[in-house]
């Protein structure tokens, strides 16, 4: 029993190291995107170009005169397939960076941080079944459900207001994969709630 617990803690330790690495990478990428956003906001409109692909747009920003550029792809779900002259490319680029990447990255970093906190309770407390972890999972679940329902819609509306001024919507604004992940996390939070009740019963029995 003790050996199995020790082996579990070793696995947790390895997972924690991976999570720390991913968290650091996420923060670094967030910083890069933020710097790009600030940099791109000061560039003139003709530094941006757009190219239509099969399922997405390719947005390109020329950062310096010697050809250094930064590009991002935007799905037709966010930026409808319109003639290029009807799209404000700079605004589309900034909206893509701010609403899509920054919101997505913030959520990603938050999720990884919460997972790390949950794993840390394996070390610092008697087990992961605590009310704090239940609340963490619930918060994460609702956040992902909110992301699934609203994120694409927010990006689409931001594109409408700042870039295209043309309203176009499809059923694909709901991210069903994220919705299912959120629902699974909420169910898991419910299981954790029962688990934390059982853990309390166990802890108060001698």
């Amino acid at each position, binding site marked *: 029993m003790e050996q199995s617990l020790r082996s579990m803690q070793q696995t947790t330790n390895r997972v924690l190291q991976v999570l720390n690495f991913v968290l650091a990478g996420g923060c670094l990428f967030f910083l890069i995107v933020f710097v790009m956003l600030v940099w791109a906001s000061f560039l003139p409109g003709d530094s941006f170009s757009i190219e239509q692909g099969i399922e997405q747009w390719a947005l390109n920003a020329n950062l310096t005169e010697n050809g250094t550029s930064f590009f991002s792809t935007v799905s037709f779900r966010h930026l409808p397939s319109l003639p290029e002259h009807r799209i404000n490319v700079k605004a589309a680029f900034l909206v893509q960076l701010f609403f899509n990447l920054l919101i997505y990255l913030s959520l990603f970093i938050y999720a990884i941080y919460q997972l790390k906190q949950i794993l840390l309770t394996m070390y610092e407390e008697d087990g992961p079944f605590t009310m704090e972890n239940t609340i963490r999972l619930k918060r994460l679940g609702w956040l992902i459900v909110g992301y699934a329902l609203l994120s694409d819609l927010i990006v689409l509306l931001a594109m409408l207001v700042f870039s295209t001024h043309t309203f176009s919507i499809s059923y694909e604004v709901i991210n069903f994969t994220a919705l299912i992940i959120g629902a699974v996390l909420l169910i898991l939070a419910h299981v954790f709630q029962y688990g934390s009740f059982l853990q309390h*019963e166990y802890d*108060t*029995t*001698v």
Partner: protein
Amino acid sequence: MAIIIRLDRILADKKMKLNDLAEAIDISNVNLSNLKTGKVKAIRFSTLEAICQELNCQPGDILEYLPDN
């Protein structure tokens, strides 16, 4: 609580310290202290059996029922 733990009384009768009992029945001092002060919600039969064996007493000597009113 309706069930009162009389461990302190029986320990005094047997002239035994809490630490010695904890060591004898292989249970942590903190847990036994929690049991003595009534901070726990349940006691395992195995723990009760070990205490009774060590103190040479009956479960009724350790647990006492007092109606709430």
